């Protein structure tokens, strides 16, 4: 019996090793693709002054949809920033999703909102809309006040009242850079079949913000936030850029993505019964377009930036990761027909299996692998070579790939101008693999378990608000 257990453990250790090799090989491949794509993109930006073309004319009007639930700490600052975006023609619709704090009151007072008639142009199911307001000061600013129904429900309400061909879904706690819309609209101009495009999210903690714009980019002081800076760089520059180069983008962040309104409406809008409505929508768009034979493209664009505040406590971070994992699980299991199915092209054959096996099921293998490895080492039933190989594959290769992500940032956008910050990021790449990564694997295992148990709900993240530039009374 005992021999059988040890044999099983030994075999499992090999499975874990294989898992890490495959996972890191995929990361490496996407990083290499991302490297080439970022180089091409940077040169392309130099060659074609698209911002100039967009400003000239021909830019499609856009509606910004910002669902807000209890965002009194940041909502005014965020709306101010949205009002200063550099784009020829856009509307802002903030959807107050039944906030129980003073979100609506603050917006009404700050922007001089008055009830105004506006009819729906689509009829996605949502919780009842109580009132629609329009700013008397900024005529492109609208607020939809509705009963609470969750983020997806709020976005659907916004889509119902959207009257432009494109809409940009974002979080009401994110700050868009001034040129973000000009940049994210590019794929829609270059390819009329584009139905969705995602931008990059960056972490605003620690940065100095003034009038809704990030003025000084700095690494956060909080260590958990610092780790997330690195995670975001890896996820967006190595991951999403690489998947875009492979033409298999399966995720567009809910905090910043542009969509063709008519396609989203035809596909049924956002799903309200998942906490991963952003990923679910993109997966469904792939499915909808493929099944209906509609030519389409979904892109990731690396330079339109949305700055967002990330959790700074372990409890909030754990909740966020639990929710992300549940969203991933719900999206992938709902559309499992796409798994390894050539009907769905590269999305079904490349991206879906990666997310299904390595992102959804992987954390379980990873977390159990750490335990099995510890047991094998402590019981003395493994040899030195295996220990070295495991540490190399599970830890050191992870460090190397994180370093590669930082290097990609340096080669492309260089948003952290201080050399000290660059070196800190390299140090974080090392430190992240010695505890933080294992912790996130554990949270994701818990998230998978929560999804299997059918746990619902978002959990709440208390906002600190952005670090504003200090001003004297005269400057105010």
């Amino acid at each position, binding site marked *: 019996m005992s021999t059988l257990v040890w044999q099983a453990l030994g*075999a499992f250790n090999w499975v874990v090793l294989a898992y890490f090799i495959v996972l890191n090989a995929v990361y490496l491949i996407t990083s290499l693709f991302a490297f080439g794509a970022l180089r091409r993109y940077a040169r392309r930006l130099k060659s074609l*002054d698209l911002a100039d073309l967009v400003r000239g004319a*021909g830019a499609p009007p856009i509606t910004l949809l910002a669902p807000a639930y209890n965002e009194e700490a940041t909502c005014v600052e965020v709306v101010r920033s949205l009002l200063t975006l550099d784009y020829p023609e856009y509307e802002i619709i903030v959807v107050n999703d039944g906030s129980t704090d003073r979100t609506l009151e603050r917006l009404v007072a700050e922007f001089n909102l008055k009830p105004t008639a506006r009819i729906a*142009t689509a009829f996605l199911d949502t919780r009842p809309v109580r009132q629609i307001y329009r700013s008397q000061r900024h005529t492109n600013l609208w607020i939809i006040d509705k009963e609470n129904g969750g983020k997806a429900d709020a976005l659907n309400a916004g889509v119902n009242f959207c009257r432009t061909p494109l809409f940009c879904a974002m979080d009401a706690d994110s700050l868009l850079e001034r040129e973000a819309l000009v940049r994210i609209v590019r794929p829609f*101009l270059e390819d009329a079949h584009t139905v969705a495009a995602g931008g990059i999210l960056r972490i605003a903690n620690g940065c100095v913000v003034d009038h809704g714009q990030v003025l000084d980019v700095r690494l956060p002081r909080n260590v958990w936030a610092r780790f997330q800076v690195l995670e975001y760089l890896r996820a967006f520059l190595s991951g999403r850029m690489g998947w875009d180069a492979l033409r298999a983008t399966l995720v567009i962040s809910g905090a910043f993505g542009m969509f063709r309104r008519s396609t989203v409406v035809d596909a049924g809008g956002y799903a309200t019964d998942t906490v991963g409505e952003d990923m679910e929508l993109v997966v469904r768009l792939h499915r909808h377009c493929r099944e209906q034979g509609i030519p389409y493209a979904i892109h990731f664009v690396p330079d339109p930036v949305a700055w967002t505040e990330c959790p700074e406590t372990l409890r909030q971070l754990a909740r966020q990761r639990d929710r992300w994992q549940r969203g991933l699980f719900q999206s992938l299991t709902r559309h499992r027909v796409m798994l390894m199915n050539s009907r769905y092209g590269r999305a079904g054959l490349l991206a879906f299996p990666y997310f299904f096996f390595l992102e959804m099921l992987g954390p379980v293998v990873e977390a159990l692998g750490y335990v099995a490895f510890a047991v094998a080492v402590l019981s003395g039933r493994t040899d030195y*070579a295996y220990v070295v190989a495991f540490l190399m594959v599970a830890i050191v290769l992870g460090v190397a790939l994180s*370093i590669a992500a930082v290097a990609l940032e*340096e080669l492309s956008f260089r948003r952290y101008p201080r050399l000290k910050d660059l070196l800190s990021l390299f140090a974080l790449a090392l430190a992240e693999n010695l505890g933080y990564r294992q912790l996130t694997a554990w949270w994701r295992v818990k998230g998978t378990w929560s999804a299997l148990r059918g746990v619902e709900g978002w959990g709440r993240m208390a906002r600190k608000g952005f670090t504003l530039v200090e001003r004297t009374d005269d400057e105010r």
Partner: protein
Amino acid sequence: MSSVVGLVEAMGLRTSALWLLALVVGALILMALVFAAYAVYLRIHTDRRQRLWEQLSARWEEPVLLALSDPASAPRVHELVAPQHRLHFVRFALEYARRVKGEERRVLQTLAEPYLAPIARRAHSREVEVRTRAVQTLGSLGLPPYAPEVVKALDDPSPLVAMVAARALASSEHPEHAARVLEHLHRFEGWSRSFMASMLAAVGPAAAPALRASFGDAHGAPWVRAVAAEALTMLRDFDAGDLAAAVVSTEDDRELVASALRLLAAVGTPEHVAAVRARCASPDNVVRVHALDALGIVGEEDDLPRLLGAMSDPSPWVAIHAARGLRAAGGMRLLRDLSDSDHPRAALARQVLGEEAGT
């Protein structure tokens, strides 16, 4: 799996395999470290390059601004450009050229012209991005002397290079190239139609004859004809009204008919209203929307009931455009009556009245 392990062990290869794995991973790690070192090197190198660029910009800025206001002082600028910094100067001039037009643009072209020969050679590079950049530079600073190079780029295998060439040639300063751009319009079919139209409209009224010819070409691709119609709309080319009415009456392609209706909304006259009215009953929502827009502008008083009736259209989009058409046609009283009633579209009437009041 255990049998695989057993087999590997039986072959005495397990330890060797693990060491091999460790070596491979070690090599990958080394690669990542080299990558990191390269990133740090690049940071230092880029900082140095940036400092040089700032120094050069500071050196050239004042004399160039002086040359823009007094072209006679242009030769002095050339004295300040060292041979090794000529391409930097072209970049400097290009950045300025994006911000100026007319005589000032011509001064910049004169300043950059002696240094453009190497750029023209780059227009034949094997790398797409290098060719694109070269064509962009020649298009901004090298026209007319380098016009043949830019026109040739319209046939470049890369759509990006071709687009940059088209953009450079579609300029009010060089209307003579508009026809060549129109001939190549089919190459940009993937691009947004309104984007292409705005590019062509940038040429100005001088492009109108070529655009009308393209729009009226019954054998042309509907997409190209629709782009030409949109450009004529932006130019408000009143001579295109009859052509648009003919297209509305005879063509079937939805986008082409919609573009022609938009053109009629901009330049149509009461003589064209019959063609527009016929399309108000189209089974296609998109066509109805544009027909009602046009009817609101070129229609007559008799058309008010038709517009009012269209406010009950099952499509909310059609209803919105009918309401706006009604407002444009002077049917404010009808809209106010509707807004006070219990009609299902009373809220729409209030919305459109609110838009009129700017609230």
